[in-house]
């Protein structure tokens, strides 16, 4: 992976080049009309570009201008953003706390029922989310958990745990136990071993796992929507409320762009962490 030196794009055959370019276009191009839509004041069919842009109408009609609305309190975008990030951070920390010890055991020990345990951990990815969400909603309503932050955070653990365990297990497997054994022989206690030896070694993998967990949590719609009961709004649910009618107006486009920002930031700064996470086991 690292030894081969970079070559020209011509090193792949024309079909592959076409495929790569086509997919890049398919992936990125739809964002262009979204951005235009969010900046348009009048964009009637069949104009490819708006006839009247947003800033041209600032004096005449202060409302509804997409970005003014998005940044005003009545859009609840700020509230949704804070909720999304806060829930994401809480879910990530909780998930890490639960998965890190278990991943060590899974990576380093052999025991009866290990295969079954691994299957159980993968199961939330294989059972349709709607099924889990609706069944859990009943339990949570009975417990008074529905529509609370605690309920949403707990339910976000379900789709994040399988990834976190997988990634952390792979990290532990990659390191073995030799360094810890040396430290133990040299008289370090368990706490010292963990904080001085193990943690520094596995830190890159832990960060990768945390970023991915955060990402899954911030992008989650269905479970938030079901368990949040409309009382906990996050960026995905806010956007859903805006476009559930099947039409996208300028404010909807603005919210869609805001909802993409966390992912775009993560993509730019975390490329090297996310790149080779061990999904494929």
């Amino acid at each position: 992976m690292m030894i081969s030196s970079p070559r020209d794009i011509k090193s792949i055959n024309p079909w592959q080049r076409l495929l790569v370019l086509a997919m890049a276009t398919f992936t990125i191009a739809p964002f262009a009309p979204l951005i235009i839509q969010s900046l348009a004041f009048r964009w009637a069919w069949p104009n490819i570009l708006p006839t009247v842009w947003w800033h041209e109408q600032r004096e005449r009609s202060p409302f509804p201008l997409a970005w003014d609305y998005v940044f005003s309190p009545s859009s609840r975008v700020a509230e949704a953003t804070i909720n999304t990030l806060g829930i994401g951070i809480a879910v990530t920390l909780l998930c890490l706390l639960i998965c890190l010890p278990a991943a060590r055991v899974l990576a380093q020990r052999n025991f009866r029922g290990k295969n079954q345990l691994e299957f159980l951990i993968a199961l939330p990815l294989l059972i349709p989310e709607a099924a889990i969400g609706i069944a859990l909603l009943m339990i949570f309503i009975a417990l008074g958990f529905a529509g609370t932050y605690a309920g949403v955070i707990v339910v976000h653990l379900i789709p994040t745990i399988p990834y976190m365990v997988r990634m952390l297990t792979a990290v532990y497997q990659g390191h073995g136990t030799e360094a810890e054994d040396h430290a133990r022989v040299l008289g370090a206690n368990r706490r010292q071993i963990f904080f001085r030896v193990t943690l520094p070694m596995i830190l890159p993998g832990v960060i990768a796992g945390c970023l991915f967990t955060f990402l899954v949590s911030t992008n989650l719609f269905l479970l938030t929507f079901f368990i949040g009961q409309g009382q906990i709004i996050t960026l995905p649910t806010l956007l859903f409320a805006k476009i559930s009618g099947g039409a996208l107006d300028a404010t909807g486009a603005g919210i869609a762009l805001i909802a993409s920002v966390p992912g775009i930031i993560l993509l730019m700064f975390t490329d090297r962490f996310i790149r080779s996470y061990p999904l494929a086991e």
Partner: protein
Amino acid sequence: MKTNRTVSPALMQNLRDVAEVMPLLVVLLGLFGGAVVLGILQSFGYAPWFGINEFPTTRYFERLWLSSDFWASLGLTLYYGFAATLIGLVISIPLSIALSKKFRVSRTFAALIRLPLMVPYTVGIALALVMLGNGGLLSRISAGLGLIDDPAQFVQILKTHWGCGIIAVYVWKQVPFMTLTLSAVLARKGEDTVEAAMVLGATSRQIFWRVTLPQIMPGIVSASLICFAFNIGAFEAPLILGGGYPDTLPVLAWRYFQDANYAFQLQGMAVVVSLALVSGIFLAAYLLGYRRYERARGRV
């Protein structure tokens, strides 16, 4: 439990292991297991909190499975799931192979193509609306080319049971996931076997079918399992971009749950359990087929 000093170190270690796995087990069994058990109980008529307790009754399943609407919904659900997963695989297998050849901008392209993985599905739906809708960009471009002169003439892509919009969103969102999974497998396998095959005179077609594809098969299976399970359980895309009645199963279940009549919730739970059952059957069949394939290749 009290442990005294005569406990052997091995036992101590075992106890510690159990203690370390325990939180995970509690969360998984408590949440996930609880949801499964309660869902099944309810679908068989157990809901004392609504004053309904007919357990065990198969009434809800009978009513559901005997209606043709259910089968239409199931068909649609499976169709969207299969079509999107297949198209995703057909794109992401060659894409991951192309991107595994390191060229100068391959990392940039790989990062660009990864963008959909990072944003919510609802953003994908918004993109589908702005691109594929009758007033969308494709419709405007067709008008610009003189193909149509009214939005209504544009071919209906969204809100049909063909589900092109739904499938497009799934593919858009899942190709990066599949590509990333396959790229991880390819990176681990290295290029040695491919180069060996080349030296031995294999054509590129032979290399693909005989060397690369078998190598990445585990990645293909795991990625397609996860995507298929997600697709048939997805709710927002079929709700917004779908053709309305008959709805896919998750939307159908949600409508039952939104009904003012509580008794319909049990009907909804029967829908949910049926969905999980169908998904389980397909995944098990798929895994079984895969194991047979591996065994035929002498790998297991």
